[in-house]
């Protein structure tokens, strides 16, 4: 019998091995990045029917979040304001503005504005705004610094793993009540914050659940 394979074939094992390694790494990497909410959800910034600027209202004008989302502390949901809320001011301010046309239209026709949802946890996750605000979790912790967003964008993955991080050690996230809507709040130096957290946790009996029943029902 003569040689079947040319000499170079003696290296194929190296090529094969290298190829295999590459494929594995590539696949894992692909799912690692493109599969995670960090890619799929973070950065979601739909164009809203009304070019409402949180930067202007919450930032420059310094409106408190709870002026519009007034039920956040009472309810499971932080409500999207009714058209009425807009009109409270805009009946007087900029009554002619082009941008506000849809609002006035809704007000006139009594047909609601169809906002597009930005922050969404899955249907089977039962997130409760009032509970978190009561505990002292600020708006910015989940929604990012809305006061600097022209159009609101999702900045946190809102994934289960991400929720658990905070539920496991909430200390650095707990704020005094008056700081809830402060977009620029950063915890004071570590041990001061920890002392504060310890005391808050005690008096408010805060126990972030890690049990399934905490969020899934």
């Amino acid at each position, binding site marked *: 019998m003569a040689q*079947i394979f040319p000499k170079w074939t003696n290296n194929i094992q190296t090529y094969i091995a290298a190829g295999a390694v590459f494929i594995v790494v590539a696949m894992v990497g692909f799912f690692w990045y493109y599969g995670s909410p960090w890619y799929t959800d973070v950065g979601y910034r739909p164009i809203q029917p009304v070019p409402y600027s949180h930067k202007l209202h919450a930032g420059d004008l310094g409106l408190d979040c709870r002026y519009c989302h007034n039920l956040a502390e009472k309810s499971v949901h932080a409500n999207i304001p009714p058209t009425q809320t807009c009109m409270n001011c805009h009946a007087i301010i900029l009554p002619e503005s082009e941008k506000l046309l849809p609002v006035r239209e809704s007000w006139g026709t009594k047909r609601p504005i169809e906002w597009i949802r930005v922050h969404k946890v899955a249907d089977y996750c039962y997130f409760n705004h009032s509970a978190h605000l009561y505990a002292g979790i600020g708006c910015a912790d989940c929604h990012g610094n809305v006061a600097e967003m022209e159009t609101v964008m999702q900045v946190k993955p809102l994934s289960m793993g991400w929720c658990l991080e905070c539920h496991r050690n909430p200390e650095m996230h707990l704020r005094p009540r008056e700081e809830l809507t402060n977009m620029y709040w950063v915890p004071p130096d570590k041990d001061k914050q920890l002392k504060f957290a310890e005391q808050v946790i005690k008096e408010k009996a805060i126990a972030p659940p890690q049990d399934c029943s905490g969020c899934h029902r």
Partner: protein
Amino acid sequence: MSEMVKQNKIEGILAEFPDPAALISAAEKMRDAGYKKFDCHSPFPIHGMDKAMGLKRSPLGWIVGSAALFGTSAALGLQWWTSTVDYRLVISGKPFFSFQAYVPVTFALGVLLSAFAALIAMLVLNGLPRLHHPIFYSDRFAKSSDDGFFISIEGDDPKFDIEKTKAFLESIGGTNSEILKET
């Protein structure tokens, strides 16, 4: 082990022998004559050949052993970490680290890794896969996987000398010996 690719033209010599017994005695003679880089080819392993050729025991056992050790400890570590450190879930009121339940997976992974280790290490030690080899120039050599028995000696063996070695091989019963060339 047999590393034969050298750029000198003469690669080595191949000689054929009638049966296992002949091969063994020939191997002993080669050994005694002080040849180092020779090998005995047969369609099946022949008992006593290692001794005849003066080969040392294969280190494979140690490799596989360590692989098995790694597999089991990795498996146990994974189970311990996931259930006691990363996410502590109360399941059927059992302790977080209930090692009794972790035995099957630990064992399975140990076996899995050692199985892979055994095959891969064997190939590496044998320098396989190696699809191209000078010995394949010989047409007779095809018999080695059927019913032929051969001794091959490499060109870079210190005692190698075309004429002498060829003569020696024939003297110890080698027939239709041929010279392997890289063409």
